[in-house]
């Protein structure tokens, strides 16, 4: 059962950072993902620092640089924000694509970005695996139907977030805070492949947490397409986030990012190159094929390669004039 912990209500971001410097402390925002890990017994923090008690950390506001969304902003509020949806439609769609109403009502943007993978070997205390600090990957010889087709090894998880690929496509920046102060970085640099960092999908220093996300409004067209095995609610089997600028019949700027197929949000640079050199209509087929360049299936997940292609094609087709 859940390891006992001491609870701290942080009153300011600085105070949260100071509290998180304690040994065995973890940050909690909505808490849905962390509570799942606690219940499975794969994490046993002695201290939990509540970020939702920090006033204003959930603010969604337009600034001169775009939209600034506090880390503890509720996903349902992001999805329901009319002005934000108008400016960044793909972001609202990605927040709306998360799980169920109940989880969107509690889950926050920061938690969505820092959630841990759903690989069942990782989530089970009964299996040793490299991501939990043990050895090897039981999925290689075991159940790997939903795991990575791109960027995998030595761990083959897929990144579960819907908002992360969209924010990579939109060119967002993350604002982090920790015991040593604040820093910010492009969200794409936040995520790391298991070949670089097997223990965690992102690069937070000890005690650091996400304070806010800043999204520029430079790419007015965006969409998020999520394909899942069970359509009522599920994690993505393959997803595609596209953000760009369209002039007439072609993109003048575009980012294509896949979700649910790689250990991190997977930028499909070859697709983008295809889209930049011809009309959108002509580029859809080659761009969706190029998105899965280098894909390599495990024993049970070859089906995800055409599925990822389909997600890209579907996302791109949504930009065609109707």
């Amino acid at each position, binding site marked *: 059962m859940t390891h006992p912990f*001491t609870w701290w*209500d942080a009153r300011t971001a600085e105070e949260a950072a100071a509290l998180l410097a304690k040994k065995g402390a973890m940050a909690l925002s909505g808490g849905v993902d962390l509570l799942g890990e606690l219940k499975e017994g794969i994490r046993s923090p002695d201290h939990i620092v509540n970020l939702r008690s920090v006033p204003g950390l959930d603010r969604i506001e337009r600034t001169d640089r775009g939209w600034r969304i506090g880390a503890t902003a509720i996903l349902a509020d992001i999805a329901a924000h009319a002005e934000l949806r108008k400016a960044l439609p793909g972001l609202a769609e990605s927040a709306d694509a998360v799980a169920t*109403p109940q989880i969107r009502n509690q889950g926050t943007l920061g938690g969505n970005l820092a959630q841990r993978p759903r690989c069942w070997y990782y989530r089970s205390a009964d299996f040793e695996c490299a991501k939990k600090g043990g050895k090897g990957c039981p999925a290689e010889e075991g159940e790997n139907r939903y795991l990575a087709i791109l960027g995998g090894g030595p761990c083959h998880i897929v990144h579960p977030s819907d908002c992360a690929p969209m924010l990579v496509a939109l060119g967002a920046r993350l604002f982090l805070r920790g015991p040593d102060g604040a820093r910010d970085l492009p969200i794409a640099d936040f995520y790391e492949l298991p070949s670089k960092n097997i223990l965690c999908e992102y690069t937070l220093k000890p005690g650091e947490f996400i304070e806010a996300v800043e999204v520029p409004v430079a790419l007015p067209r965006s969409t998020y397409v999520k394909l899942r095995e069970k359509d009522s*609610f599920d994690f993505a089997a393959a997803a595609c986030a596209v953000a760009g600028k369209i002039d007439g019949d072609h993109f003048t700027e575009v980012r294509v990012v896949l979700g649910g197929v790689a250990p991190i949000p997977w930028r499909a640079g070859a697709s983008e190159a295809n889209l930049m050199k011809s009309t959108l209509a002509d580029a859809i087929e080659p761009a969706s094929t190029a998105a899965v360049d280098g894909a390599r299936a495990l024993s049970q997940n070859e089906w995800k390669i055409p599925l990822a292609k389909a997600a890209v094609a579907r996302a791109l087709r949504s930009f065609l004039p109707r």
Partner: protein
Amino acid sequence: MPADRPDGISRRDFLTVTGALTGAGLLAGKSSAEDGAKGKGPAGLGPEAVGYTLRVNGEDRAVSAEPRATLLDVLRNSLDLTGAKSACDRGECGACTVIVEGRSVYACMMLALQARGKEIRTVEGLSRGDTLHPVQAAFIEHDGYQCGFCTPGQVMSTVALLEKTPSPSPEGIRAGLCGNICRCAAYSGIFEAAAAAAKAK
């Protein structure tokens, strides 16, 4: 879903986590002796049971529970509100759905401490005396259940949906209730009940 809880938790363990309040003395609760950074930060709560108040169905209720207790633990084991059900315990089935600050949430995936200072509503608070809430009445009228185990969660999700979207489309009803699973698959009755309750309002 496995019959045995993987963590081997028993009802007795739950009771030690959430123990019902037996004396007013417990209300003071215990705070960790540790202070925040440099002794000026907030006091930590726990890890032993701490006393606090939850506002449930319009009433302030004193509870004593360890910080690790979920809202569902406290509702069921300390406050004897057993309408919200414990089934998957992982935020996947919806049987524990309650409404916090007007939003449906999974009580199994929210720590009770997170619900302090918020308006919590459970299925027990819906009816007015013998008069059922229109959503409850519609579930009966349209057979929105078979075994009934998931019903409190289905009803609470429907109430939350209709308070936000008084006239949902059929697709809106399905999307709004997608976080609640009915193992008897009484979905057609559930969706009809939701549609009828929307019209009745």
